[in-house]
């Protein structure tokens, strides 16, 4: 980062996130952020550096070595997928990169001549290991858009966010009291202990089309999936939906998915497929919602989400 400034004395500003805000798009990581600053507070990183609080002269040799050490630690953390380069909702907002991608997705939608609103609700399931947490599954729960291309594009945009576990724990402790997760969301992923971390909303305007995207971030204790390698700000690569496909009878942990229809399916076959999907979805939602003593609106939401997943 500061290699082109290496001949100048450098100072290290070690400022915890709690004392200095870097804006919503920056990491909310609770790990101290290390900034390499140039001579006389010259701006080297994207944050303006300040004078040494002691007002003494810098000691280039000592601090230079310290700076290099800390830079190495920072790089190491970034390599681990840690604080460096993380993207995660902060201050109730999605990262700018994610919002930008959602906007791009919106451009793939309709271009109405009058003002039209579309509501989309996604559930983001968070998995965690001993070091960090990441979004391992994105599900469309409800949509008034009904354009799969845009809906899946937005799902992909939401996928891949990650944060150090320490920051996640901090967020849970400070502002997001665990609340029971909507049963239809929990049911879609089995009976793992699930708590909702936060609810977000973002407005995406594309011409006369206004997309209101609701995002429910949920953490599932006891679930672990391989950490995704995709990074949200990386060039868009089509991501295959992680929802398991099954042609067998549904279980309590798998959303029933009837065989995916090819592009040229006769209407009769398509109707039969959706009829089968409907039966499976009803069995699934009866077992995972009604049997739990949960009624509306969860049962109807479960059915609609399940049918939508099957493209029916």
């Amino acid at each position, binding site marked *: 980062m500061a290699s082109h400034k290496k001949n100048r004395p450098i100072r290290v500003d070690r400022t915890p996130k709690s004392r200095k805000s870097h804006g919503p798009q920056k990491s909310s990581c609770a790990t101290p952020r290390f900034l390499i600053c140039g001579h006389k507070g010259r701006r080297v990183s994207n944050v303006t550096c300040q004078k040494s609080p002691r007002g003494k002269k810098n000691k280039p040799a000592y601090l230079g070595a310290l700076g290099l050490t800390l830079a190495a630690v920072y790089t190491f953390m970034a390599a681990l997928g840690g604080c460096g380069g993380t993207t995660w909702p902060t201050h109730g907002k999605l990262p700018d990169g994610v919002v930008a991608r959602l906007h791009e997705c919106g451009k793939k939608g309709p271009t109405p001549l009058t003002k039209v609103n579309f509501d989309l609700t996604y559930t983001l399931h968070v998995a965690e290991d001993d070091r960090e947490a990441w979004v391992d599954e994105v599900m469309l729960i409800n949509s008034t858009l009904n354009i799969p291309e845009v809906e899946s594009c937005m799902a992909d945009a939401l996928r891949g966010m990650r944060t150090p576990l320490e920051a996640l724990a901090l967020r849970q402790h400070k502002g997001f009291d665990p609340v029971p997760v909507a049963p239809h969301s929990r049911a879609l992923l089995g009976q793992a202990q699930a708590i909702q971390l936060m609810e977000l909303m973002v407005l995406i305007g594309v011409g006369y089309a206004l997309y209101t995207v609701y995002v429910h971030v949920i953490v599932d204790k006891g679930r672990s999936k391989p950490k995704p390698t995709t990074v949200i700000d990386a060039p868009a690569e089509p991501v295959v939906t992680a929802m398991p496909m099954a042609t067998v009878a549904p279980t309590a942990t798998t959303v029933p998915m009837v065989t995916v229809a090819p592009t040229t399916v006769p209407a009769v076959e398509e109707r039969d497929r959706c009829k089968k999907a409907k039966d499976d979805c*009803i069995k699934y*939602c009866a077992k995972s919602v*009604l*049997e739990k003593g949960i009624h*509306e609106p969860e*049962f109807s939401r479960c059915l609609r989400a399940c049918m939508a997943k099957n493209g029916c």
Partner: protein
Amino acid sequence: MMERETALKVNPMLVDCYFKLHETIDIVRQNSNEEEFQAYCAAVGKVLGYLLLDVLEPIYAQNSDLRPDLLK
């Protein structure tokens, strides 16, 4: 497609039926063993599911203002 006037008449009756069926689940839960309860849920779930997906949803597709809050 159902006429709106007809939809206005049948919707309250259907919704009432739908939620009364839901209520029966709690009654059966309190008065039956687990096996009976599961069988009942499966059976009532079918009625509720078809009532919602095949009857109510088509009405709401044409008359979105008729959808009750509890089915949103």
